[in-house]
């Protein structure tokens, strides 16, 4: 079972364990149409996965230099080094947003310079931090080619249908993440006519399920999007934004959030606000790559197991 699942309650110890996720990515593999998490990228062994293997990184916040991590570019670089050290190259990578901290051209440049070292195709969706330039054009110019609206799109790989959604634009007062009517219409259309046996992977920045509305951790109109996905036998929803691993399984849908490569955030309600969580400098680094996500046959949920490298 998930130790981070909100419904299961979050102890202080678990909160500390959540913090250990910063700095790496999750390696995903799809065998037999079902995505399995192989664990943290630094621990992931190059399993001879018969199907498709891809990687997720998130929330690199390039330009962030506050006490919670004065060198967010450095930890992104570490994460990328770990990707490059994988014995088996993933097919591609997805980045679930907040590439930059303030949407400065220099921040996007720095992110690209580091991430491109993987020589992998990277499929991006934006976070709210990627639309802060006055004309809101940098993200779209760099990553939005061939996408619809403000940056949504879909593609196929090894029989799996991937859908990148944008839920960080045109947010409404008092609300959460927002997809909007135009994008929902596109989604319905994109899915129509597809076989229900097609495995679907949806990725977006803000969680598409309600994690903690008091902190804005959810998407106002995600229920509409999920209603279009109901008939599919295997749906995996990958998000970022909350800088910690959480997961939930609802019917055929597995929801999973990835950690950040930049700084940890507190577990829901564990602090006065969701702001960056400061830990001792040496602790932050020693925490890198010390927990993993595994799929166990016979269990409905992905299992998140905390495995510290240093006690």
């Amino acid at each position, binding site marked *: 079972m998930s130790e981070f699942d909100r419904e299961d309650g979050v102890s202080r110890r678990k909160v500390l364990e959540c913090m250990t996720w910063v700095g790496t990515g999750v390696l995903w593999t799809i065998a037999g149409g079902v995505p399995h998490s192989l664990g943290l990228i630094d621990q992931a062994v190059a399993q001879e996965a018969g199907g498709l293997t891809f990687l997720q990184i998130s929330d690199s916040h390039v330009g962030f230099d*506050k006490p*919670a991590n004065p060198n967010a570019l450095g930890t992104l670089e570490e994460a990328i080094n770990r990707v490059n050290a994988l014995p088996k190259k993933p097919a591609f990578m997805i980045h679930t947003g907040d590439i930059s901290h*303030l949407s400065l051209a220099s921040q996007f440049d720095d992110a690209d310079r580091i991430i491109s070292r993987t020589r992998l195709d990277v499929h991006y969706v934006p976070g709210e931090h990627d639309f802060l330039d006055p004309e809101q054009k940098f993200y779209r110019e760099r990553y939005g080619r061939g996408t619809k609206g403000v940056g949504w799109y879909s593609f196929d790989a090894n029989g799996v249908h991937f859908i990148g959604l944008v839920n960080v634009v045109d*947010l409404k007062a008092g609300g*959460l993440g927002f997809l909007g009517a135009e994008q929902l219409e596109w989604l319905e259309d994109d899915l129509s006519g597809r076989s229900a046996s097609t495995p679907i992977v949806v990725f977006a920045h803000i969680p598409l399920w309600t994690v903690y509305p008091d902190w804005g951790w959810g998407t106002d109109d995600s229920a509409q999007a999920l209603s279009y996905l109901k008939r599919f036998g295997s749906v995996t929803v990958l998000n970022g934004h909350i800088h910690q691993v959480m997961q939930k399984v609802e019917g055929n849908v597995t929801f999973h959030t990835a950690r950040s490569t930049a700084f940890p955030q507190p577990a829901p309600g564990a602090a006065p606000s*969701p702001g960056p969580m400061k830990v001792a400098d040496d602790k932050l680094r020693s925490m890198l790559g010390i927990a993993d996500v595994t799929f166990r046959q016979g269990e409905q949920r992905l299992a998140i197991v905390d495995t510290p490298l240093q006690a």
Partner: protein
Amino acid sequence: MHATLRAMIVAAALGAAVAPLLAAVVPPVQAQNAPTAVSIDNFIFTPQTLTVKAGTAVTWANKDDIPHGIAWMKNAFTKSKALDTDDSYSLTFTTPGTYAYFCYLHPHMTGTVVVEAATDDAAH
């Protein structure tokens, strides 16, 4: 103790002397040091509702380690640029009314500015 007492007496004496002068120059509500600043701290606008007289400049200051931005309902005003840590944003309100705003990065953060007519009815 004595120092404190003395300070209080001095303050009271000064207040008595200065108050009539202030009243002559600025509207009574301003003389009471009505706040014109909103702090952004722990993802909350404080005060949540700020009441000012028309002509007042209101300043928002971000105390969080994460950027925030201010957008106005009904696009009443141009949104602020993204406010990084310790950045601030000011807006002068000239027209009485109730103006609701939210953070365009974290829209669950909301606040209101109530602007009252500068000619003061509250004096009655």
